[in-house]
């Protein structure tokens, strides 16, 4: 379906750009730390001894950033591979956790914290045969819906639940929120909600407003047909 394809590339670009920005930040820190060390060392051997601690801290910082950088490239790599096939078998929990990591940066910019609800240990993993990129897009779009109505300092919990045989993802908003009705209205009138509906349609699933909690319930079929 053309509609489904339309936004995929843009989404990919968006996420990739996000990761890349973070990488640039990593590199910037490394550069600064290294620059600082260089400055200190250039002054004199005595200065080195005087500012030993600073040098050591710089080194630690560099190491930390490398670890962070490696994590980022891992994420990028994994996300890049979600485009390998149109339809693939995915682990919903894994994908949700992945997406949450990818979206952290965007959440941070909105001063919202993202958390995943740990899966039910007893329950078997939820696997779907579906469009990997679009699942990412659906989760991301739900987050964006929440961002529009949440204020700074809020938190979003994302958890998987099997609901009457359907695979559901609950995106629950916490924090300072308007009343349920107002909350629902604001979300359903937003552009992000329209986008989310389109994406859910492509996935042959649905996106509803949660009646009990402030949140969105996404549900997906076990397998989608072409």
């Amino acid at each position, binding site marked *: 379906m053309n509609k489904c394809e339309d936004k995929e590339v843009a989404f990919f670009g968006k996420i990739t750009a996000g990761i890349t920005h973070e990488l640039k930040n990593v590199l910037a820190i490394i550069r600064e730390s290294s620059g600082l060390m260089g400055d200190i060392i250039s002054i004199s051997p005595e200065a080195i001894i005087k500012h030993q601690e600073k040098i050591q801290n710089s080194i630690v910082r560099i190491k930390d950033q*490398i670890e962070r950088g*490696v994590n980022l*490239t891992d994420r990028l790599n994994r996300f890049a591979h979600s485009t390998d096939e149109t339809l693939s078998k995915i682990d919903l929990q894994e994908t949700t956790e992945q997406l949450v990591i990818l979206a952290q940066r965007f959440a941070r910019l909105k001063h919202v914290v993202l958390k995943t609800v740990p899966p039910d240990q007893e329950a078997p993993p939820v696997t779907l045969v579906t469009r990997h990129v679009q699942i990412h897009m659906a989760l991301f779009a739900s987050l964006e819906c929440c961002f529009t109505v949440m204020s700074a300092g809020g938190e979003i919990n994302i958890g998987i639940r099997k609901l009457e045989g359907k695979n559901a993802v609950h995106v629950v908003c916490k924090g300072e929120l308007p009343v349920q009705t107002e909350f629902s209205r604001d979300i359903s009138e937003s552009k992000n909600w329209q986008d989310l509906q389109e994406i859910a349609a492509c996935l042959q699933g649905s996106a509803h407003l949660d009646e009990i909690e402030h949140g969105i319930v996404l549900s997906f079929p076990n397998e989608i047909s072409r």
Partner: protein
Amino acid sequence: MKNLKILLVDDEEEFVTTLAERLELRGLQARVALNGEAALQIIEADTPEIVILDVLMPGLGGLEVLRWIKAQQPQIPVILLTGRGSTKEGIKGMELGAFDYLMKPINIEELIKKIQEAIESQP
């Protein structure tokens, strides 16, 4: 473990020479080869006790060198270094007889531990 003769093979010069320096600081004898051919020459001329080998190299690739070593000097344990997306090469290397593999960027403590294990596993 002191003065253990190690051969490091990697085409990334900055990386491999720095790593060699760090290993030397820890009391190991580290030599460096920047490509497969040089590595083979050094192994023949001055046999190391263990080889740390990067899989992705231009010219004679890491796995080729591994095959050669296992054919000519099978007693030398080999530890592979792979990129984070190339675990396939690591597994293939294990099948070809490598002791283990590590993903770059490496943790030097981990590397030293692996070297110890490899040496101890020798009969």
